[in-house]
């Protein structure tokens, strides 16, 4: 039993690690070595990395960071307040929770056509604002939904006591309830950032030009002229490495945060 279990975990680790290893190798390979995919002996070159940096991948990474941070900041502020109302006062009736879930599952294809036309008419095409607005359509409901669960887990007595002690409703919320859900906010914010960081669909349609986000940039290496395989692998790593490092540090918090309330419905 134990052996099987270990074998299974090791196998899964290999399945996960193999593509990474291949991409890392390919990003250091010259054109010749790339034609022989399984070779492990080759002269490493930094040409791909130089190419990808010269191609402006760092600008795209910066665009992605700006979009992600602003989107998450807006979603956390609006979502937390709304979630508190839904959790504590049942604002809007029992349908609200379902409504929040519903707006999360709107396929992007439904919203993208109007968003495109509005952005076009307001001259906002190819700007960060258009991407942020489109990312809020899926980030905001997710954050709200997570936060409802976290607020549900805070005992009501806490704020009743705080109000007896002389805090107003908002004071009780800010000083007593908010600190309780802070780890939850952290987990939701990380999750939301990853969603925004990974989006290709909206970013491709609303801003394919000068304000290309990282996924759009990566997709652009896959052209009809043929694929610049080595450069593309380097670009993939630019997007993967920071996220993997972050993932390593937050994984524990994420498991705990989600079991703390995000799973309730």
């Amino acid at each position, binding site marked *: 039993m134990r052996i099987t279990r270990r074998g299974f975990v090791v196998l899964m680790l290999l399945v996960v690690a193999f593509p990474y290893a291949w991409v890392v190798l390919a990003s250091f390979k010259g054109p010749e070595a790339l034609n022989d995919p399984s070779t492990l002996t080759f002269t490493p070159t930094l040409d791909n990395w130089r190419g990808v940096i010269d191609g402006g991948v760092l600008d795209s990474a910066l665009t992605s960071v700006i979009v992600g941070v602003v989107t998450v900041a807006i979603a956390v502020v609006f979502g937390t307040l709304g979630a508190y109302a839904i959790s504590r006062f049942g604002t809007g009736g029992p349908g609200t929770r379902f409504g929040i879930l519903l707006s999360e599952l709107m396929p992007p294809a439904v919203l993208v056509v109007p968003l495109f036309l509005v952005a076009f008419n307001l001259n906002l095409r190819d700007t960060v604002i258009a991407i942020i607005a489109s990312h809020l359509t899926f980030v905001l409901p997710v954050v709200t939904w997570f936060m409802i669960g976290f607020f549900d887990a805070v005992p009501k007595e806490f704020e009743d006591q705080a109000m007896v002690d002389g805090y107003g*409703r908002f004071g009780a919320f800010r000083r007593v309830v908010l600190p309780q859900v802070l780890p939850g906010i952290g987990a939701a914010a990380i999750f939301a950032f990853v969603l925004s960081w990974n989006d290709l669909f909206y970013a491709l349609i609303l801003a394919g030009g000068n304000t290309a986000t990282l996924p759009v940039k990566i997709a652009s290496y896959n052209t009809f002229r043929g694929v610049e395989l080595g450069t593309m692998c380097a670009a993939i790593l630019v997007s993967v490495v920071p996220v993997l490092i972050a993932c390593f540090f937050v994984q524990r918090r994420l498991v705990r945060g989600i079991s703390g309330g995000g799973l309730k419905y």
Partner: protein
Amino acid sequence: MGWRFMAPLLVLLVAIVGYPLVYSLYLSLTNRSIVRQDTSFVGLDQYQSLIHNSDYGAAMRNTIVFVLFAVALELVIGLALALALQKQRRARDVTRALLLTPMFVTPIAVGLMFRFLLNQQLGAIPQILSQLGITIDFFGPSLALPTIIAIDVWQWTPFMVLLLLAGLESLPRQPFEAARVDGASTWMTFRRITLPLLKPVIAIAVLLRGLDAFKVFEYVFATTNGGPGNATETIQLMIYRTGFGFFRLGEAAAMAFVLVAVVLVGVTLLYRGMMHQKGAT
């Protein structure tokens, strides 16, 4: 009282989700196109022509097959992995962190990674297999859709693991101790205790993953672009092409709304089932 906290969220949601939704519904009733000047109201014509559009039917079928198989595989593998990880003691954090990484990688990067890993000429996997005397065309007509499902499984099984692991670790301990005292086998404990207690978490995980899987776009965009033929055409890709390749916005909107209807029916059934169970326990 609650409305004061709720109002900002509501206003924002109406602006970015509500308004586009209504606008999109209106568009689906017109023949709006970027390349044509005049737009006229055509009623349900767009929807009617979709019924006879065999490409759309194929795309819908592909999408549904994709969602069903991908989510089922992810659930089974994810559950097995979550159970194994829960019992693991050594190198716990490193193993978990590494196994969870795929869900954090940009899907387009995952798609491109596998496109070249599995490529006939340039790919490492076909080359290794051919040394063993096996030739497989991963993106051929019969295997393209299963390959794309496998890519989804690689990326999103970790998401299942994350949710199920969180669920497992928050289960009460007493039933398991009682089962151990009674000498129940591992399988019995799993069937009779773990699974029933975990059901709400499984339902949520399947719901979230299923909804997300309907939006599949990047893998197909990166690998086959819908081919060979229309073997891997999915709804999201077809809408992208109709709306922003051919600029037929009205038709694209109608396609999207049919998808919404399909998703809504599925979700409502699942949500009802969940609420029913919640009431029963």
